[in-house]
């Protein structure tokens, strides 16, 4: 049996910012090391709801790495599509109440409507993970570290490059103490 394909995805704000952190970090040399945002945006068809764009714009007001990361995601807008999930005829006209934030909720509605392969999120440490899993219909939930790990397991980067990316993103995204991230790193040993 063939492996499940990940060709079309909807990404939430947290995933896009996490993947954009390495390129936004002056100390991380993406001329020689892989840029995971470039990987995502050129290897998958990516769609996001307008709310994610608005959350990214809010982040750009600050002076930190999250702001630089969000600025870069916005600069790469030719490489993803923005679609309002509630403008479609096959969805509800207004945002449902899942108990999640607006960007996540809209992303899930869009992911279900488009029938994409995956919904990318950083929510693996929070109580929302099981909830997101439950409200997604066809799309599978893909935690950001798993995506990076699978670039390596597909042979698109080395295991050591993937480890290094996850280790570099971790302190900026509170992944440091996550047992899940430790397990993903051990898959890359």
């Amino acid at each position: 049996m063939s492996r499940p394909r990940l060709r079309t995805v909807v990404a939430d704000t947290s995933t896009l910012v996490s993947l954009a952190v390495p390129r936004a970090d002056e100390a991380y040399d993406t001329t020689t090391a892989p840029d995971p945002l470039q990987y995502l945006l050129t290897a998958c068809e990516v769609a996001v709801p307008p709310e994610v764009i608005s959350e990214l714009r809010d982040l750009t007001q600050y002076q930190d790495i999250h702001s630089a990361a969000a600025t870069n995601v916005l600069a790469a807008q030719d490489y993803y599509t923005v679609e309002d999930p509630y403008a479609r005829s096959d969805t509800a006209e207004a945002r449902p109440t899942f108990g999640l934030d607006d960007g996540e909720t809209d992303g899930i509605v869009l992911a279900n409507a488009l029938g994409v392969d995956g919904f990318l999120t950083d929510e693996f440490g929070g109580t929302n993970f099981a909830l997101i899993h439950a409200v997604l219909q066809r799309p599978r939930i893909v935690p950001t570290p798993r995506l990076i790990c699978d670039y390596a397991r597909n042979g698109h980067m080395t295991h050591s490059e993937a480890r290094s990316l996850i280790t570099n993103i971790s302190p900026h995204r509170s992944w440091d103490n996550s047992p899940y991230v430790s397990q993903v790193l051990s898959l890359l040993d």
Partner: protein
Amino acid sequence: MREYIEDTADSETFQELVATKYYDDQLDFETAKQLVGAETAQRLRLLRSDLADEPLDIAAPDDVNIYDGDATTVVTDDVDDR
């Protein structure tokens, strides 16, 4: 006593310990559920199955400049020394 257990179950370190033991197969799902509650245990179960999955089939990326010019960078203090 109950308060102690509730406080402990909510603490991040305790949850991390349960997660690690559960991922390493040293705890079963029912025990994990009693220790951290149904919602967290369900998340751990989903993540454990995610970790056990075969790799997703992902296409090769293209080496193109996606940033419409130069990407923005900032100097961070806290990366090198961690």
